């Protein structure tokens, strides 16, 4: 298992907790990302119904960064923050071209099997599952930030 780089211990101020860590640009980092995030979510007693979409969005955004810039040697920075209102997650990719993940994705979810193509669902699903999704690009640095409210769930119970 690959471990993240430049790990920082939780910074807890009042009821706010923040952790950040850099991860190698590889699908093999997904387990370490899950463990890193789960640790902070579990410590804050975040409901499973909220954890699932957080892990989902995090993986989709991270794997997108890996997929579209496979030769980039920079690690990807992950920042997770929790407070009474919910969870805020940012992923930052360095020295990359712009790729706005917030633009709407045309997906025909009613298409029959023979017309379906593998791929292209990830960003569509993120937009369904998180509360806010923001994209910033400056100095060849891409940052995607999403939020998910505590106790609020787009996924049915």
């Amino acid at each position, binding site marked *: 298992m690959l471990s993240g780089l430049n790990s920082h211990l939780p910074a807890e101020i009042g009821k706010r907790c923040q952790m950040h860590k850099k991860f190698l640009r590889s*699908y*093999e980092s*997904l*387990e370490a990302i*899950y463990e890193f995030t789960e640790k902070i979510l579990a410590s804050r007693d975040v409901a*499973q*119904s909220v954890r*699932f*979409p957080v*892990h*989902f969005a995090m*993986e*989709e955004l991270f*794997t997108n960064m890996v997929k579209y810039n496979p030769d980039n040697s920079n690690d990807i920075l992950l920042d997770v923050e929790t407070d009474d209102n919910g969870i805020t997650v940012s992923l930052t990719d360095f020295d990359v071209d712009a790729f706005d993940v917030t633009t709407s994705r045309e*997906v*025909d*979810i*009613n*298409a*029959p*099997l*023979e017309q*379906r193509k*593998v*791929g292209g*669902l*990830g960003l*569509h*699903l993120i937009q*369904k*599952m998180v509360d806010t999704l923001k994209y910033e690009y400056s100095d060849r640095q891409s940052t995607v930030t999403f939020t998910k409210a505590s106790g609020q769930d*787009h*996924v*049915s*119970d």
Partner: protein
Amino acid sequence: MFQIDFGRDGEIVCSGRLDAAQCEKAQSFLDSVDGMRVVDFSKLEYISSAGLGVLLKTQKRLSENGYKLKIINVNNHIHDVFRYSGFHVIFEIEATQR
């Protein structure tokens, strides 16, 4: 940790987390199956869009010979991922019994 194997009655049993790093393992297993198949998700906690791609590719291959996958014991969160993806249209899906 993701695992995929045959159950006692020939069903396909998945467990753990099916993320992008585990798709090669899942696809390799599913490429070897044929006929009508039941896939038991009772121990599968999580699936990403990459995992959906594995299921879709398998369903398309099986459908060429008139076969398909039926997915059973799907937890609420994965069921919603299926619903948002329209997979409930192209797969027979049974949610976890409550």
